[in-house]
């Protein structure tokens, strides 16, 4: 599966309060959440992000709360993929469970400019920066996580397993 979009650059330790501030967590409506996505990190993000755009960030992306509203807001805002140096663990689980593709690629970070056109092949982990004509290899997604993605997320995966058991 190939996706492409413009890069939005963020720093290290982007926390879940920056991704979706808790003051908006009195709803789980994805369109409402999308309106405030990344608000405390970049107030212009939600109004200017385009469908397919890609978030590129430093280490420990998604640290803090367990709120699934974070990947929900990112996905509903139209973001097609998050590439970071590393991810916080609960965010990592939540993203796969929600079907938001995320990739770890330390080499890419720092070499991408805001607005660069990126092309990502999720099955191979190959990332192409079309603006600089450079190619990068993201860490392969663990096999188990690939199974989750193939099933369409955690719930379909479990339903499939339960059906097999009965």
């Amino acid at each position, binding site marked *: 599966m190939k996706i492409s979009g413009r890069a939005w650059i963020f720093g290290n330790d982007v926390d879940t309060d920056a991704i979706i501030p808790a003051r908006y967590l009195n709803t789980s409506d994805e369109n409402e959440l999308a309106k405030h996505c990344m608000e405390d990190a970049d107030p212009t993000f939600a109004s200017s992000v385009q469908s397919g755009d890609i978030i590129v960030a430093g280490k420990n992306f998604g640290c*803090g709360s367990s709120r699934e509203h974070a990947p929900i807001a990112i996905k509903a805002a139209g973001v097609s993929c998050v590439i970071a140096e590393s991810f916080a663990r609960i965010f990592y689980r939540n993203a796969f469970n929600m079907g938001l593709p995320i990739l770890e690629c330390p080499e890419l970070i720092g070499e991408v400019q805001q607005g660069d056109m990126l092309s990502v092949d999720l099955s191979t982990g190959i990332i192409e920066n079309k603006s600089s004509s450079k190619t990068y290899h993201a860490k392969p997604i663990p096999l188990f996580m690939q199974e989750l993605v193939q099933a369409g997320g955690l*719930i379909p995966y479990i339903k499939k397993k*339960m059906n097999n058991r009965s």
Partner: protein
Amino acid sequence: MSGQTLAEKILSTHTDNGVARAGDLVEARVDFAFGNDVTAPIAIKTFKEAGAKKIFDPLRLALIPDHFTPNKDIASANQVKVLRDFAREFGLPYFFEIGRVGIEHALLPEQGLVLPGDVVVGADSHTCTYGALGAFATGVGSTDLAAVMMTGRVWFRVPESIKFVFKGELPRWVGGKDLILYTIGQIGVDGARYKAMEFDGEVIKSLSMADRFSLCNMAIEAGAKVGLIAPDAITEEYVKQRAQRPYRFYQSDPDARYEKIYEWDVSSLEPLVAFPHLPENIHSVSEATNIDIDQVVIGSCTNGRLEDLRIAAEILKGKKVHPRVRCLIFPATPTIYKQAMREGLFEIFTEAEAVISPPTCGPCLGGHMGILAKGERALATTNRNFVGRMGDPESEVYLCNPAVAAASAVLGRIAHPDEVMNE
């Protein structure tokens, strides 16, 4: 083959084949699961959309509306209603209504619902608090919770362990909160990412349960999956009156393998303060005494226990909160609330012109009951100081222990407790 760490031992007793070594992907049986008014509505929606008809065990699931309660607005009231309706539909005994609800991470141990040796998953990141009991307890998202509600099982990658050995003797006014702030300051907010933190040493062995909960509560602030303390006589004393089920004590084998071992002598540790906007920005309180504050918050799942309130009362007794400062105190559960009242702590707080809130997460996450305006600065005994955490994105949160918070409330600036107690 080397021995097992505490984390490996608990997980291996919860897998079908009895095996769990660091790096393995395992499916673990869950002893207890829960969600709150922010996370459970999504879990319930997912559970229903999946066509699930029954809860794996209604006695092992709690729904705890503690975040935006007492309901701060119509949207929050609707979220709590989702939990209430679901609890009635499925006959869940552990739905906690106002008057009975407390902050989840104080309430569940207090009620004996989470126990040593358990695997606990909660749809809240501070679920790691129960590591203080010797439970493998970790935060998950709402979809993971929905899956556990259906199956009673959850997948984990078994974490490698990092051991933290605290030596010496804790000075006065220094507690569990300072130990974890010090640790995060040393290793950073991703210093234990995906790992099990295991706290050990003579300091831990003599630490009260309240301090142990504060310490393990913030393991997530170093990125950890769990923060664990091996249970002992202090744990037994706490648990034996409360336990609703049998429980088991585990400890690491002497030859268990650790990714890293830190040893620190904390005999000369000062009370610490985390500066904005990350819990790793640690300074000793004496480096921070020129910082004026607008608000002090004492409470939360980190420091809202009876022992924390007693420390605050010891300092606030006979004094007044600085005229420029608003001081808000949040007992974490109704039981703590009642006991604090009986002990006369509320008299001390109200005479000092602090205000006492019902148990709620409220201001800790910028929910309600003490939101900061643009440019305002709070000193709080909570666990996160991210941008906008307690209100306006241009406000600031500093983190500290209850003694520093109380002393600072009196002086209107960040202060060492000795500045107030030696007057």
